[in-house]
């Protein structure tokens, strides 16, 4: 742990990266929260779904040379398909079984998707990121900080989708059904809501968001099967800050996480500090979540 001389001049630039990173975490976290709220299952395969979808985009845009947006579309389609398959084939048959069983099944999916992707696209090879927007950017007036258009796009997409999800949950019929199922599946059934359909919808929507998060994050992190799969942990940390149920706090948590991961770069050359920051925030989130007297969470 060598402390380099503090380089405060880096802070504004790191803030930009941290916020953009946070935006992608927010997207992934929203998917986690959505699935957790509706089905009670914490999806450990979320990162793997993101990773696999992103490699579909890579196949379409980088390998086959088609435009970036087509790759993104393909990734979203792949995400939705995976969400559907996981829910339909391995969650629905287990209705009424302990939630931990379902959670371990998602870990099974993590292993399958991770190994399959490593087979198809080679685990440790270098992969070029899917390019959606040109890399050029603009200088923030009065500073030396350059913001890339790709970074800006990432942030805007993340925010729009976050707000969009919140709006859908709040104002549409589907959202109302989702909230009803989350609160009380039995009552929802009595109201004539198809619990199965709503649950499937949450898995598909959540997985689609994972796919978008995956494609957007590739320019920012190492683009290989393993690293992408592990964004599930970042998403968990953000979602835990939102107590796994609150979308706004999960988004806030995502931005905090992004910044906390980036700032140490100003003070140390050790890239491991990124992990230390994540782990510390995870411990804090778990500790806060489980402080004595607050155990009334919907935890199976």
């Amino acid at each position, binding site marked *: 742990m060598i402390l380099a001389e503090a380089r405060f001049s880096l802070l504004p630039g790191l803030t930009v990266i941290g916020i953009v990173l946070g935006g992608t975490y927010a997207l992934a976290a929203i998917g986690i929260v959505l699935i957790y709220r509706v089905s009670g299952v914490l999806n450990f395969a979320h990162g793997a779904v993101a990773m696999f979808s992103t490699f579909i985009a890579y196949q379409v845009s980088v390998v086959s040379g088609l435009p970036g947006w087509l790759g993104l579309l393909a990734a979203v389609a792949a995400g939705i398909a995976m969400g559907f398959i996981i829910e339909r084939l*391995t969650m629905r048959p287990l209705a009424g079984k302990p939630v931990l069983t379902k959670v371990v*099944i998602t*870990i099974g999916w*993590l*292993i399958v998707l991770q*190994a399959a992707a490593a*087979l198809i696209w080679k685990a440790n090879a270098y992969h070029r990121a899917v390019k959606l927007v040109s890399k050029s950017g603009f200088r923030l007036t009065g500073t030396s900080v350059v913001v890339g258009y790709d970074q800006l796009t990432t942030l805007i997409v993340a925010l729009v989708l976050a707000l969009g999800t919140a709006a859908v949950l709040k104002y549409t019929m589907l959202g109302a059904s989702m909230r009803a199922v989350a609160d009380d599946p039995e009552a929802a059934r009595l109201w004539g809501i198809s619990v199965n359909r709503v649950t499937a919808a949450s898995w598909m929507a959540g997985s689609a968001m994972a796919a978008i998060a995956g494609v957007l994050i590739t320019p920012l992190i190492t683009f290989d099967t393993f690293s992408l799969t592990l964004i599930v942990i970042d998403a968990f940390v953000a979602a835990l800050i939102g107590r796994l149920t609150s979308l706004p706090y999960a988004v806030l948590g995502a931005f905090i996480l992004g910044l906390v991961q980036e700032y140490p770069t100003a003070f140390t050359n050790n890239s491991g500090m990124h992990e230390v920051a994540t782990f510390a925030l995870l411990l804090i989130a*778990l500790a806060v979540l489980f402080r004595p007297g607050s155990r009334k969470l919907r935890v199976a």
Partner: protein
Amino acid sequence: MSDLRLVRWTAVGVGVALGVLIPALLTDFLRTLAADAAIAGLIVLSLVLLTGMVGQISFCQYSFAAMGAFTVGSLVAGHHWDFWLALLVGVFFAAVVGVLVGFVALRLSGLFLAILTIGVALFFDRFVLAAGNWNSFSGGLSSWRPGRPSFFGIGLRGEYAFYLFAFGVLLAACLLVWNLRTGKTGRVLRAVRESEVAASTVGLNLTAWKLTAFGISAALAGLAGGLAAVRVGSVSAGSYDFLHSISIAAIAIVFGAGSIASAPAGGIFLIFGREALIDWTPFSTQWFDVILGAGLIFQLVHAPDGVVVDIERRITRRLRPPRQMPSESEQRSPERVPAEVG
């Protein structure tokens, strides 16, 4: 009952005999794999203890193993310690880390424990064992190369000798865990799993017992790591990463964490399954993980207790005469609340 015991001990006897004899006929390469299987079996055993007895899940058993492996590597190769002393220290360090994780885990269960242990595994992978952080422990970019020890004057350099040694350690560990399970410790831990409120009300110190379980489980994994260090002859972080932890957890679940027999069976499956795939099929090792993951999913959808446990139950049912409820005209108990896992 006595039939059941007879079958059990016959099975153990046959298993031990085969375990000793078969590798005697194999090539040195296959003997090293057999030793690896015994070592992997130890890690499955550590999960049999933690998951099967206490009901706690863990996805960081290889991080505990890494504590054992890197302590042995660092002390033996870096500081020229005696292997046995280094192994003892390594097991102790692993237990300490296990207790620390257990301490954080005290209030957590189910999903949250799963998240925590994955966090721990990644923290180990990317920070503790990453080159540049604690090189005196992790060896930095050049990995430690501890040599093979001798066991009461018998050199363990030969692959068969080393295999027998590793196999012996696994058997001894299985016996100890069996004793724990059938004794007071097992009873107490099962009670804690069944009802924490009741367990503490009858006077059990939940904190102490849970930490004990985490400590013993991590110590077993650490022991496995220490053996792996000298089996391979070099210690590198890639052999103890998160994916290893998650695969071994999958194996423990597929075979059934409820049975000690899952330990040797899981170890053999992990090591030789991979090898068989490469040798006898056109598939590469990555297919093994695809199959393992798919097996895990299939298993949980269809027989959640695990393969070995399922088989044992069938045998037990056949051998044990069905018990009759004593004739009392009392009504049956209302449906019991399903055991909470989270």
